């Protein structure tokens, strides 16, 4: 297998672009040019991007639906934050360690759930992940360590918003690098081949079960990190932060961004984070818009009638373009 080359051109260009974007946002935050609400949302966008990317790996590339992503998110948030509350290390180190612990615990969850449901696929797998998310939430409610339904408070803050944003941003960049490189590697091609035709993939020697476990574990790991960022940013978490609606919201990001398109997922995650701001006053319609978006995206890419319409529209546009172009030449 080809080794992943971390110093490839694309990665370097990406890191450079990421630093430029960071410089702009950090300047805006530091000089208070950005409105306060936007500053807060910038941090929210960070963990949403991580969540969307981690689910994108499972839904967009492996082609299995996980409806329990909020469960991994919760596992990471609770384990990381409990560590953070009970530790005396310097806050920066504590945050990084908490992120690693949260990610690892969530990854263990992902490993356990995926290795127990290897025989399942499709609808059954989706239902099991949904059940798993609900089980996690139910047990968080009854375990004393997590504060139960009352929630877990007193999670330390990193200090200024800029600092929280900086740390979160670094994790976003790491997530993008890791997931992009997985997808671009031979592992990624194996994963997409499972999505496109599992039987054919198996017949050329791809170990479907192993890849399923790997993808779920990696996806859960990053969802866990996102949970730790959430905890250290709002300083208080409760089971309601991780309900079914959250899983759906992450799914909407992946579907809107285009399944199997990482850049799309990133853009969709940022757009959806800022959607409540954009739709101020129409917030009660937000979930309705999500629902319509899910249905419409699926119809647009699958309905024979709409596909036909799109092909015809494209042909017409091409014809029009040609007409205008030739007229110019005359």
């Amino acid at each position, binding site marked *: 297998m080809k080794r992943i080359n971390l110093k490839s051109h694309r990665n370097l260009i990406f890191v450079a672009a990421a630093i430029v974007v960071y410089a702009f946002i950090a300047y805006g935050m530091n000089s208070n040019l950005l409105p306060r609400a936007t500053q807060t949302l910038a941090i929210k966008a960070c963990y949403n991007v991580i969540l969307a990317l981690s689910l994108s790996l499972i839904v967009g590339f492996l082609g299995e639906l996980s409806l329990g992503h909020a469960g991994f998110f919760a596992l990471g948030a609770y384990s990381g934050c409990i560590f953070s509350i009970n530790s005396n290390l310097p806050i920066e180190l504590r945050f990084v360690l908490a992120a690693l612990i949260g990610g690892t615990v969530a990854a263990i969850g992902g490993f356990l759930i995926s290795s127990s449901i290897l025989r399942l696929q499709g609808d059954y797998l989706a239902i099991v992940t949904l059940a798993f998310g609900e089980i996690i939430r139910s047990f968080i409610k009854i375990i004393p360590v997590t504060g139960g339904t009352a929630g877990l408070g007193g999670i330390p803050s990193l200090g200024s918003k800029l600092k929280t944003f900086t740390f979160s941003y670094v994790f976003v960049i790491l997530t993008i690098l890791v997931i992009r490189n997985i997808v671009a590697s031979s592992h990624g091609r194996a994963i997409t081949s499972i999505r496109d035709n599992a039987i054919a993939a198996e017949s050329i020697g791809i170990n479907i079960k192993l890849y399923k476990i790997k993808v779920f574990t990696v996806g859960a790991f990053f969802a866990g990190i996102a949970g730790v960022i959430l905890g250290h940013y709002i300083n208080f978490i409760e089971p309601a932060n991780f309900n079914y609606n959250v899983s759906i919201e992450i*799914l909407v990001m992946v579907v809107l961004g285009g*399944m199997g398109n990482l850049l799309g997922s990133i853009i969709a995650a940022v757009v959806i984070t800022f959607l409540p701001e954009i739709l101020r006053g129409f917030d009660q319609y937000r979930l309705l818009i999500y629902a319509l978006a899910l249905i419409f995206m699926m119809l647009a890419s*699958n309905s024979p009638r709409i596909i036909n319409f799109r092909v015809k529209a494209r042909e017409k546009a091409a014809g029009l373009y040609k007409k205008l172009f030739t007229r110019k030449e005359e």
Partner: protein
Amino acid sequence: MQQFIMTLIDGINLGSVYALVALGYTMVYGIAKMLNFAHGDIIMVGAYTIVVFITRLSISVPLAMILCVAFCALLGFVVEKLAYKPLRHATPLSVLITAIGVSYLLQNLALLIFGTNRQFIVRFIDVGNFNLFGVSVSGISVIIWVTTIVIMIGLYTFIKKTKLGRAMLAVSEDKGAAQLMGINVNRTISITFVIGSALAGVASILYSAKYLNVDPYTGSLFGIKAFAAAVFGGIGSIPGAMIGGLLIGLIEALTASYLPFNLNAASDGFAFVILIIMLVLKPTGLLGKKNTEKV
């Protein structure tokens, strides 16, 4: 002992409603090969129509019940026509995401129209109590049991004996071959959805007669548990749905009344634990057929 029997009766009540809902799931899943995520939400919509017709408009009860079932069937027809039918040849993932979208849409429409508050329903089926082996059983319970059993037998005979029912069986076995035999596959699947949704309508009447309240999230959790029941009994099998529904109902009633109070918050979780254990050990369910995959 008295309390134990009461709990059992409660469990059978709950289980009968689950069984009715599971019948809808199992039919649609068995024939159209898709998990109709919106099935539970159609029950929620049905309960709201009961609220509107009986509590708000005070239409006579039998008429309101017929209207409720008709409305659910119509809703199933519209949803199928607009959202599922164009996706007949799409990947299962796309169909599943669409179904989740429809479920979410119904939930949020109800939320916008009726608000988050729980709506209460007047007691519209009022029958006295029965005495069964020294234990007093509410009339509603008896009505629920009888309805569920009648519908199950009716559905079973419909599928085994009528032409349309056998066409459904044929479609569930092999779509291509069914088409070659002159069965209109598309229409058969659409009819399956309408029947499934009408069953959801009946379930919504029983649900609202028993629990007398509804909120926008009533359907989703209820639906998932009923799906768990369908899976438990073996998807595609009508007696399986019945057994699965009763078992899930009994387990839920027993855990709710015998677990210590501090574990009660997790009682929903237990149904899911059972679902996962079942799927891990025997993915085809109790009475399900084994499916071999062909290339």
